[in-house]
């Protein structure tokens, strides 16, 4: 006999992801028959607000598009402006930017690990990983003055140079985080509960992944080796030595393994960056930001964030303010069309678990 279908509203209060969104589920028994994403709880019309501010005044807005990982937004907007204007960025600034992006990736993965374990009921992991993430946040605070939102990367370079002894602190933090990884393996990745929950759950079809617009760790978790840092190297990624881990399977487990291996790569990249960072200028000064007419033109730039391809399409009409800035966050696809597809057939208890594994960040969807 066919089971009666019931409607279940999951969210909007943190339904397994960082931020507010709701998933309307049609369930039969405890199996999802249909899923519909509802967003709109975090819409702040950032893109519209940017059209009423100068280019440089837009930086404090864009970092707020993603709380766990704000830096790719700043870097993207900066690079879009630089591309439209044809402005060169000093080599040192490029190295500093990569260091920031990788620190931000590590911080985002720490937070993801807490969320992923939390949705599986393993509550010790968030206590550890959020605590360890704070060491990275402390570094950001010392460097930029802000713990979460940094407004540090801006058009022309970065806002200020590294303070004295900062590089050593970063290296010491990396040593510490590296020493913690085996502990996380024992606590989380090798945990029988996590393995049992993650393997074979939330599978993305490998053949369809590219066409569906899957990016980042979910794509690499399907065994497809694509990463913006390799495909279209930006800043100084082409001068660094790192590998792009992939994992076959396309399930939550594969995505977790990709992220776990990428943490090691990020630590290695940060060490290389500090080792190779040249001395010199960190900022190619722009004209008075309040009276800066960016030439007419448009640019699409992209960055590999912790959740995948982060793109900015920026248009200038030659005026003081942007004509249009349109943000493409990975969650735009992962959180709506992909999520609605792969939740069908899932168990209710796995919904939050799958959402977290895709790295859905609602403010990125609605901005």
């Amino acid at each position: 006999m066919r089971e009666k279908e019931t409607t279940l509203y999951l969210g909007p209060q943190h339904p397994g992801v960082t931020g507010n969104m709701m998933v309307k589920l049609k369930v039969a028994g405890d199996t999802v028959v249909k899923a519909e994403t509802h967003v709109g709880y975090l819409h702040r019309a950032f893109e519209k607000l940017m059209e009423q501010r100068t280019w440089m005044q837009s930086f404090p807005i864009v970092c707020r598009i993603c709380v766990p990982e704000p830096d790719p937004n700043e870097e993207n907007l900066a690079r879009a402006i630089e591309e439209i204007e044809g402005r060169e960025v000093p080599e040192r600034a490029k190295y500093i930017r990569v260091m920031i992006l990788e620190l931000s990736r590590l911080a985002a993965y720490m937070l993801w690990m807490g969320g992923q374990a939390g949705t599986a009921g393993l509550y010790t992991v968030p206590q550890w990983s959020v605590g360890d993430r704070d060491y990275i946040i402390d570094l950001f605070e010392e460097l930029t003055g802000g713990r979460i939102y940094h407004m540090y990367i801006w058009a022309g370079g970065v806002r200020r140079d590294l303070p004295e002894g900062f590089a050593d602190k970063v290296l010491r933090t990396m040593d510490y985080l590296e020493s913690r990884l085996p502990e996380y393996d024992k606590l989380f990745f090798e945990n029988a509960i996590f393995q049992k929950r993650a393997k074979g759950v939330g599978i993305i079809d490998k053949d369809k992944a590219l066409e569906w617009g899957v990016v980042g760790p979910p794509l690499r978790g399907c065994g497809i080796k694509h990463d913006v840092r390799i495909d279209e190297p930006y800043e100084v990624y082409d001068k660094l030595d790192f590998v792009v881990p992939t994992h076959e399977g396309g399930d939550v487990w594969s995505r977790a393994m990709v992220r776990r291996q990428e943490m090691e790569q990020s630590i290695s990249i940060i060490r290389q960056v500090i080792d190779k960072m040249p001395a010199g200028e960190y900022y190619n000064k722009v004209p008075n930001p309040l009276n800066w007419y960016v030439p007419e033109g448009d640019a699409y730039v992209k960055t590999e964030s912790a959740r995948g391809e982060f793109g900015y399409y920026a248009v200038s009409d030659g005026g003081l303010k942007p004509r249009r800035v349109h943000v493409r966050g990975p969650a735009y696809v992962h959180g709506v069309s992909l999520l609605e597809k792969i939740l069908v057939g899932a168990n209710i208890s796995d919904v939050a678990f799958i959402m977290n594994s895709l790295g859905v960040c609602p403010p990125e969807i609605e901005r």
Partner: protein
Amino acid sequence: MKTQNINIEKEIATEIQNTFHTAEVNIKRNKRIEVKLRNDLIPPFLSYAKNYLTFNHLAHFSCVDWIEQNEFELVYIIYSYEKGVIVLAKTRIDREKAEFVTTRHLWYQAETYERELHEMFGINFKGNDRLNEFILEDWEGIPPYRRDFDTVKYATDNFYTRPGREDAKDVRENVTKINKEEIPEFAKEYSVRSLK
């Protein structure tokens, strides 16, 4: 590395030009090609780019309001993983009768982009039956991302001012008064409110 081949953009541009004679093809830079097309040619172009030129990743779909020309510019940003190149396919549609066709049959996720552009710009995508409420709730009036939508007016009409800020003064005036300083002339000129 495969993406370092500088000639690939020329090859793709020539191929597009030979197939779509009326297209305006322009290599913007390494890995970026801009293709401007008549709006009726966009669906066949996207299908051709996806199926013959391996541009199978719809990276972004955007809209720019060119109110001065009474037009919307639709920008499809597609990427070929194989070739490592991005094509920005652009077309213009009438702003008054904002209508276009869906590309959901090519990329399932286009549906989400179309839902957003429908809500924010009021563009109707024929063939997309899911142009329902997406981000906004019970929205009435002109779509908010159109250039003629006045954000400040909407905010003052619909929300109350924080107590003590009824005059909506520039906070710098109070700060400078407390610190017995003066706002420099250039800063007065470029204050946020004067940037109209």
